């Protein structure tokens, strides 16, 4: 193993432009994985991804199926059973 990345987050394109959701995700994440750019668009803070505590607050805050958390070390996704786009 030559890399040490543990977590990835996928946000469905259908909600990626939703500023209200961006604000919500920014607020709920306890480790600041989500942020908003100056114009309010959703941004993923790459350097905080591995701080993810698997709390699923982001998943619960978003419309079902639109936010997925991927455990890169096991291939599992949250919510359990969700398919990952692009494999």
């Amino acid at each position: 193993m030559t890399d040490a990345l543990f977590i990835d987050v996928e946000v469905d394109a259908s909600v990626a432009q939703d500023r209200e959701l961006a604000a919500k995700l920014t607020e709920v994440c306890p480790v600041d994985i989500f942020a908003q750019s100056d114009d309010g668009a959703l941004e993923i803070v790459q350097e905080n991804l591995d701080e993810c505590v698997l709390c699923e607050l982001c998943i619960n805050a978003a419309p079902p199926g639109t936010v997925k958390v991927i455990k890169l070390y096991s291939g599992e996704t949250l919510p359990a059973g969700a398919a990952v786009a692009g494999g």
Partner: protein
Amino acid sequence: MRFFEYESRAIVAKAGIPITKQGFAKTPEEARRIAEQIGGPVVIKSQVLSGGRMKAGGVKFADTPDEAAGHAERILELEIGGHMPRGVLVDDRADVKHEYYAGVVWDGIRKLPVILFSDMGGIDIEEVAENHPDHVARAHFSTLRPFSDWQAKQLISSLGVTGSALNRLTPILARLARLFLSYDMTLAEINPLGELTDGAFVALDAHMDMENEARPRQKELLHELGVGDEETRQAREPTPFELAGEQVDAMDHRGVAGNVTEFDGNLGLVIGAGGGSLTLFDAVRAQGGKPANYCEIGGNPSVRKACGLAKLVLQKPGVERIAVMMSIVSNTRVDIVARGVIKACVELGHDPAEKIAIFRIPGAWEEEGFKILERYGIEYADRSVSLHEAARRAVEKIQGGNGAGAEGDQFRQTTAEIGSETDV
């Protein structure tokens, strides 16, 4: 945290207890000027945080300002117990008729402060207590009610002291008891407390120790004395490695990953928490291992912090592998620590499976943590493997099984040095 004598005496004076005319000097010239101002015989005292100053030649008497400057020059260059002095105290050489002792400490069993008084001052109070117990009086006092003068009077008179000595000593002891509480001291001692030929009482030397936990609320006093936040005042000065550990811990407010102490071994330790660290450090040594460091992780630190600590330990010269071990965790998360230490290895270009001798942290989120460890091929253990067994496995890996008996000589060296610095 310990105070230098010149600071201790300033604290005593601030509390209204008389001290001799004196000044703190960092150069022979300053010492000369202070001696001139005092105008008479003086004592030049090295300002170091270690005992045995007299024996080491760190206390000299001078009759003239020139002599004072000469002594100061030599004392300022004299290392005592591994410490260079911060300066010298130039002190009026008072005409002392009698020396008393006054001190306040905590009694952890009664959970109260206890004030001690002796009419045999100038020597170590423990020596007096052992050889002349009838010359030591002691009294516990309340932390809820203000300390009253009669309590000091009763204590002093119990040794048969009366007359003007009693009346002059009473406010001094009462003020000492009050300063002990108001400045959060763990030790407040005046020894000797001198009775001069003119009948006045002055603090001829003082020793103050403040509780570290109280530093935030004693900022004003510390600022007044010029004590910086970075001064730890431990038995020895922190090493650059230890200071780097503090920086790791300050990276964010989540949990603890620090409290690093440096040793000379080849096995880096990423261990926790308080009691677990103590147990594991002992265990590694009992197995003949040579720890490169002591440290503590706990309180659910971030991945970043665990990574920072592991990197620090991995980069320490002489470290061949690290052992990541904790007692069963309920708040700190196994998976978070696993991510941190693996990241540290990989980012430094190491194979985690090779560098991490063993990972033994059972408890919160262990299933998730074990998945990560398996993925990277790291040897890990759950709660069925004891702390000592985990330590044994780590030592065996690093020393190829011939560890037992090869007690760390370098460890001895380091600690012998520290021991000699604390002969208070």
